[in-house]
């Protein structure tokens, strides 16, 4: 029987619930996360006895000692850290499925941190985008965009669209959460 399994599971900021649920279900089947790579999307699992473990993903730009000590005090184990994202896990028994965020207000604030970073990333594209578009149009360079440049341009626009999509989905998520507050 295979002891190690590798899965490519893309996930994003706006559906952290999906990846959390997936990892929890895997562990219930006896596969425990050993390591993550490639922007936390390539997951290596190790065969273990099936167990109940809650996986949670947090976004924190400048985690300090206080952050790590608090989570560890509460019994959470850090699985992986990447670019502001931290993945935590905690084993539990039948009655008490734990969570990092236990009220919607703090979840809204966590999401707001992600939205802020995405917003800055988008804003940063505006001046460069403007200057380049203006340059291409006024100098009639449209016809001179060759093959490799076309590919680069396409990839760039795709990346920006993905960030824009993530930004929009996060804002919508927060809108729904805020409705449940007073």
């Amino acid at each position, binding site marked *: 029987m295979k002891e190690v399994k590798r899965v490519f599971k893309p996930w994003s900021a706006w559906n952290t619930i999906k990846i959390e649920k997936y990892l929890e279900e895997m562990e219930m089947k006896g596969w425990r996360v050993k390591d993550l790579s490639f922007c936390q999307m390539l997951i290596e699992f190790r065969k273990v006895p099936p167990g109940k473990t809650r996986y*949670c993903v*947090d976004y*924190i730009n400048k985690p300090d*000692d*206080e*952050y790590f*000590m*608090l*989570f560890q*005090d*509460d019994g*959470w184990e850090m699985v992986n850290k990447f670019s502001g994202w931290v993945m935590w896990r905690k084993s539990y028994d039948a009655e*008490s499925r*734990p*969570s*990092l*965020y*236990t*009220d919607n*207000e*703090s*979840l809204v*604030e*966590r999401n707001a941190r992600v939205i802020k970073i995405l917003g800055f990333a988008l804003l940063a594209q505006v001046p460069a985008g403007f200057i380049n578009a203006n340059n291409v149009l006024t100098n009639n360079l449209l016809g001179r965009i060759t093959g490799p440049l076309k590919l680069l341009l396409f990839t760039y626009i795709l990346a920006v669209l993905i960030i824009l999509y993530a930004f929009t989905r996060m804002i919508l998520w927060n809108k729904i959460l805020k409705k449940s*507050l*007073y």
Partner: protein
Amino acid sequence: MNDRLMNKYIPMTETAYYILLSLREEKHGYGIIQHVGLITGKRLIIGPGTIYGTLSKMEKDGLIVALREENRRKVYKIAETGKAILEVEIDRLRELVDNY
């Protein structure tokens, strides 16, 4: 009482209320989680993400103060502003209960 703080914290979430209540005695973050779990008969177990975010927010707004650091953990206590805002919330809750 500062209008901005009033609008931000009143009415209070259960989490905020219990954090301020807990911090009438100095504690570190995990101490708050334990204490609130105890006094609510395990009904309210606050998560660390929520605690960290709320403590940071309250410290910034002057509701609580970090007294010192012990074993790489901050020890917090409620500040005068926090006590005042807690009083406002208690009055609000009293009115609700008294009208029952």
